[in-house]
């Protein structure tokens, strides 16, 4: 349990004057409607989860579902109304102002939806800003910032002002700035939502490339389910401040916990998300076809091969041991099943 970098225990965030008192009176039974009648807005409702080192947790939900509020609680940009938050075992809510600043200067980086660059500073100055604020010498800061500029592929534009850059480029600056202090924990609040679809895809790929290299602990926020599927190790789906389900993409697609989650999963091309293991049946003594597939293959990649067989196909693990079987009809059912029910 100690390797959890971020750990939340029943975190609540309620906006309003009497929030704290009302939360105590509610005894852990917070209902958004009754609170709203009394003039309080429930931002986050009883969130408990952990993010372990090097993991990327994507928080997904429609606009207004409390994603940003949750993230703000964890970065303590706002104080949670109730619950406990631990960052690498440290109780976040008990930190003093000074300690909090130290934590942000060394451990945390954050990227914002609207880029939030300082308009009066150049690209280079913006990226060097967290270092300068921290007290790093100007020359070292600039050198480090220059490395970051190269990392996000903005070489040659380091002396531009944010207003002279396109949205995608501005967000690259935002990313570079958040990485300048080499934080362990990386928060991204809808970083690509303000970008055009093509640029967004490009940035997502770039982001994955970076993460491959940097292996940060990440909380990534998005309202786009496809983006969540593409990036996440695990996904938390939020609605009205409540985390409806928190699981791996495949499990969410296969077993949506609530009607709400199910709606998102229906449109999802499953063959792109699921791996063989997710759909295989128990090993049987039936005679199998000659083909064998690994249990970690994504269905899309092996579907054609399996569909060309008539008999069930054996599924093997790393040691080439048979752990299950897949019948071609199962593949057909998985790929088209969900959407057929829908139409």
């Amino acid at each position: 349990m100690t390797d959890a970098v971020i750990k939340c225990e029943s975190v609540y965030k309620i906006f309003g004057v009497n929030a704290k008192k009302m939360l105590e009176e509610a005894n852990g039974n917070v209902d958004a409607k009754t609170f709203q009648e009394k003039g309080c807005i429930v931002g986050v409702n009883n969130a408990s989860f952990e993010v372990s080192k090097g993991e990327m947790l994507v928080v997904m939900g429609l606009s207004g579902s409390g994603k940003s509020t949750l993230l703000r609680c964890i970065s303590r940009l706002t104080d949670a109304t109730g619950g406990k938050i631990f960052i690498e075992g440290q109780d976040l809510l008990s930190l003093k102002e000074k300690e909090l600043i130290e934590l942000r200067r060394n451990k945390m980086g954050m990227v914002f939806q609207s880029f939030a660059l300082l308009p009066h500073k150049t690209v280079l100055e913006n990226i060097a800003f967290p270092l300068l604020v921290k007290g790093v010498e100007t020359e070292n800061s600039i050198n480090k910032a220059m490395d970051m500029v190269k990392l996000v592929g903005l070489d040659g534009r380091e002396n531009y002002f944010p207003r002279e850059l396109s949205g995608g480029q501005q967000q690259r600056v935002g990313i570079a700035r958040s990485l300048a202090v080499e934080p362990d924990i990386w928060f991204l609040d809808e970083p690509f939502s303000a970008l055009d679809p093509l640029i967004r895809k490009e940035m997502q790929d770039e982001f994955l490339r970076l993460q491959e290299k940097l292996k940060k602990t990440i909380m990534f926020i998005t309202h786009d389910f496809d983006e969540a599927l593409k990036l996440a190790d695990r996904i938390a789906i939020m609605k009205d401040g409540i985390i409806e389900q928190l699981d791996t993409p495949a499990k969410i697609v296969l077993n949506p916990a609530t009607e709400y989650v199910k709606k998102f999963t229906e449109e999802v091309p499953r063959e792109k998300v699921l791996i063989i293991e997710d759909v295989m049946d128990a090993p049987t003594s039936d005679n199998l076809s000659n083909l064998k597939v690994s249990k970690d293959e994504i269905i899309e990649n092996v579907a054609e091969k399996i569909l060309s067989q008539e008999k069930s196909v054996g599924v093997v693990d790393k040691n080439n041991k048979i752990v299950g079987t897949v019948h071609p009809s199962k593949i057909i059912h998985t790929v088209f099943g969900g959407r057929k029910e829908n139409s």
Partner: protein
Amino acid sequence: MELLKKYPKLFQWLFLLVVFFALCFAIDVPETYKFIRGQAEFIKDPNQSTYILFGKEVRYYAFDNFWRLPPLLGWLPIWINDGLFFLLNEWMPMEFWDSATQEYKTRPLVLQISRNITAFMTFLIELIREILLGGVETIVAFTSWNFVSAYPWAKLPGLPWTIVAAGAAILAYKLSGKGLAIFAGLVMIYISVFGQWKPSMQTLSFILVAAPLSFIFGLSLGVMAYKSKRVEKALYPILLVMQTMPQYAVLVPAMVLFGIGDHAAVIITMVVAIPPMILLTLLGLRGVSPEVIEAGKMSGCSNWQLLTEVLIPTARRDILIGVNQVIMVCFSMAVISAFIGAKGLGWNLLLALNQLNIGLALEAGLCISLIAILLDKMSLAWANKQTDYFGNLTFYQRYKNTIFFGGAVVVGMILALAGSFFFKEGFNYLYEVPHNKGISTADFWNKGVDWIFDTFFVYIKAFNTWLITEVLQPMRALYLRMPAVATLVLVVGAGYIIGGIRSAFTVGGLTLFIALSPWWDRALVTTYMATFGVIVSCTIGFVVGTLCQQNTYTTKFMLGICDIFQTFPSFVYLIPVMMLFGVTDTSVLIAVIVYATIPATRYTIEGLRSVPVALHDAATMSGVTKLQRLFKIEFPLAFPHMMLGLNQTIVFALFMVIIGAFIGTEDLGQYILKALSDKAGGGKGLVLGICVAFIGLIFDNLIRTWVEKRKKHLGID
């Protein structure tokens, strides 16, 4: 009934007007009523009624209460005055160390504080003044008069004008570039050659103290108001009143507290210049997007870093407008505070105006305006300057401005030294061109004025007479003919129709205050002049603005003109009108019109510009003509913004009307001017100022409320 449902507001207005006029006709002018001329109020007259409140006797002419309300607030100025006197002379006596006599002295606290502030301000001003002009006061401040008389060499020599001019040009170059450098150099040379060096430097030293102090205080208070709701709530009403308070009116109470001289002028200037700075700082900080603030916090900023590195730079646009305002107010005050003994160009300007020496006034006015424009441009350039600290500069590049300035100092000294040998008759023109030894164009202008008068006298006179007898007198009579009750009903009704109960109470309260003060008649005259000015200004501004807006070049040109005109201190406007129309109401009104047309034009242009381009295109695509587009789309959409211009126009007009007292009007301004020379004028000046401020606030409240509603209705923000 159908119509009534369709235009409910229209009928409300009609009803209000009917009631208003009915009241006007129903209430007769009392036979004994007459407009009280300037001196009459001091005459003890058996016809006057009196009442005594808080031990103060208030005398007044009683009329039917429907016609004029009794001045129930008449004790207020007296009371404020006594309060000030008490604070200054009796409250909280304490022991203070007097370094001059080397012993403890008993002094009231406020007096001591005021003395200390005075000493501090005087020191600052003298320091800068003596760096520029030379003198002994700074050294005296550190030593004593004995020391200075014992050692005649112990004084600041003052810089030769050549060095100051070069310094200004180099500074301008560093801040902005060649263009501004040339302008700075020319301005300085002009000032020197035309013999205005000494008064100009006196004014400059005053401004170099007042402007930075106002900026610092305004910025800090603005930040405090941003951080704490309570500070903001406490400041807000004061700010509102100060925004519409004529600068003139603050002079009197400040004079009571701080005496007369440059230091008092600096303090007054700060009092006037700080409120807009606070408001604009607050506006700017409020506008910083929350995500930028969060980004700053996540970058690990401490509170101080967040403020200085993120909040203030990001809010720079509005803060800069604040700086611009501070500079404008400072120059305006540089003239006005000549009334309480500030030295410099303002003093010369007032003196010249008093002697009707238009030529001299023009020269002084031109100098002030030039310096104002220069400082304005420099401060803008300073704030927009980018630090390029990554470039690899050579030693020469890095320090070239310093090197050049050093060179200029050496050359200037040598020139001054050479000059002392060359010019034998005692004036060293290369050191400082004495005040009356420069080139003067005053004669030329005075001759010009005379010529204009001789040539056009008949026409000007005819126009003047026509305007006064046919337009102004009747209009004034109409305003004075309004019974107080009718006016109250009109204002409260308008407030109710526009903004509901809340607005009605606010404007009603403000009006009641004026009605209960001893100066209701005067307030009506002020309002009449302001109204006349505003109507004409708005018409001109609206037409000119709309025409100019049709083309990008004319738009730019016009906005540039507005910028420059706005930088002129308000008093400067009196010069040309006095030149043409002499000392009459017409002069004041024309100055009012010229001055108030600036915001009217500017806001018309900006209002029209604020109409979204998409709408523009959509209209063009649907095939409407240019004129249709203007009337059906652009005007309605730009109207809220233009109304804010009306707001400014009213404030500008009011200020100018009050300043017009200098030419001799019979309104509140006349009394403010009189309070200046009145020993017990502090309270009077303040209450008069508040009356003027309230007139402004009544319109301000109505217009703002209307604009808010309208904006909501149109769905723009």
